[in-house]
């Protein structure tokens, strides 16, 4: 099954590159080079120029997502299970969630410096809300009958969390992580345009400034690749729950 899946991915990507190639041949502009040129460039400069940027970006995304998942699922699960916690925190979440936190970047940079901390912080404060809300609603949607057999056994909250809340929430957490990963990559690109000379976002923008479109497309391709790897990893985790979910 795994081999088949990999084959499917390669086939579909191949189709996309063919379409790209045709489009590029039709446009005939240095703004839109053919994929072959980009691939040749990638082979030359990936390890020497791009790999270090890509690795740093992956680090920022993964660290941001892990912190987000930890904070978000703890808050979300507690809000879902304890009505009183939900009543206090919901207004706070609803108020802060829609504020465009990208606008806070200057403040975050003043508070946390120009280094890794400010970039990771921004990813966390943007992605954490999706995770909180997904987790809270997941717990709220567990049918109340599910709890009955444990309640009638005199089980306390800790047992209920371990036996019902956590296993029921785990597959939904992966959905939240998928949503978060997409957002995190976009946020990362933005933050890497300020106060840094490292990261794939910086690499792309720098190539653009230097009017090196081949390098720019190489960076974009790598960014896409990072996304692909992240999502495939989350999909792989999904298989743990495959049997009881289906």
């Amino acid at each position, binding site marked *: 099954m795994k081999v088949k899946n990999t084959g499917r991915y390669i086939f579909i990507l191949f189709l996309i590159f063919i379409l790209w190639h045709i489009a590029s041949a039709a446009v005939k502009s240095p703004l839109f080079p053919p994929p072959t040129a980009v691939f040749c460039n990638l082979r030359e400069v990936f390890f020497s120029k791009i790999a270090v940027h890509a690795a740093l970006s992956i680090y920022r995304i993964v660290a941001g997502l892990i912190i987000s998942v930890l904070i978000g699922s703890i808050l979300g699960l507690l809000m879902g299970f304890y009505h009183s916690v939900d009543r206090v925190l919901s207004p706070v979440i609803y108020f802060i969630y829609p504020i465009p936190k990208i606008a806070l970047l200057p403040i975050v940079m003043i508070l946390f410096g120009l280094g890794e901390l400010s970039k990771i912080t921004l990813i966390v404060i943007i992605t954490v809300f999706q995770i909180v809300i997904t987790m809270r609603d997941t717990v709220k949607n567990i049918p109340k009958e599910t709890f009955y*057999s*444990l309640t*009638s*056994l005199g*089980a306390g909250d800790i047992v209920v969390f371990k036996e019902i809340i956590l296993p029921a929430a785990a597959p939904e957490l992966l959905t939240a992580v998928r949503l978060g990963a997409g957002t995190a990559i976009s946020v990362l690109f933005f933050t890497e345009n300020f106060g840094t000379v490292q990261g794939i976002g910086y690499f792309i923008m720098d190539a653009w400034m230097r009017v090196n479109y081949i390098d720019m497309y190489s960076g974009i391709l790598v960014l896409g690749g990072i996304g692909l790897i992240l999502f495939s990893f989350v999909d792989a985790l999904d298989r743990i729950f495959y049997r009881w*979910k289906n």
Partner: protein
Amino acid sequence: MITVRNLEVFYKSSRGKFMALAGVNLDVEKGGIVAVIGPSGCGKSTLLYTLAGIIKEFKGEVLIDKTPIDPRKHRIGLVLQDYGLLPWKNVIENSLLGLRVKKKITKTDREYAEYLLSRMGLSGLFTRYPGELSGGQRQRVAIARAFILKPDILLMDEPLSALDAITREEMQDLFLDVWKGDSISTVFVTHSTEEAMYLGKKIAVMTGPPGRIVKTMDNPFFGAREIKDPGLYFSIKSKLKDLIKGRQK
């Protein structure tokens, strides 16, 4: 032994208080089995959830072996209509869940669970998840789980009503067979007169809302598949039906 005296339960909603049970009295002697029968919405499930310690706010008395109901002290076996199995646990994990909340699982417990599950016709399915079982099989796991707990009382909330007629009769026989081995004080809620007359040593007729037990009668046809006195059988059956319908109007 289960004793219920003047039980009143209210549900609170935004429109005010709703009376679900109005002064219910019920006795289940040690090793007895009472079938509670009544129309939908009459408060049967509410009565059962109160006995199970799920509904904690009530007026009146609910005693198990003369002590007030407390799910932490008493062992309560509960079988629900939708099986109450956890979808992320396989058959053996689900069947041991009740015991595991109460104590540490020993090898003897595990063997007993495997024995009961096999007796329920589930051997070879121990590592399946509920989603991979048929409705009848799931209900067997739920019933086995209740017995594996070795409960003080057994509460069953229309456990067989989602099954087809043939599976249902099979399950009734299987249930009685296992039940006779342990003779646990049992309340069996159903909306079928036939089921009540097969599985109840006593039959309690409930009407509502608000829920009341209007009549409790001894049932001479407990555990009898072959009816030797059809005249009496049908007169009791029609009496039950009248009681259920009569008070509903």
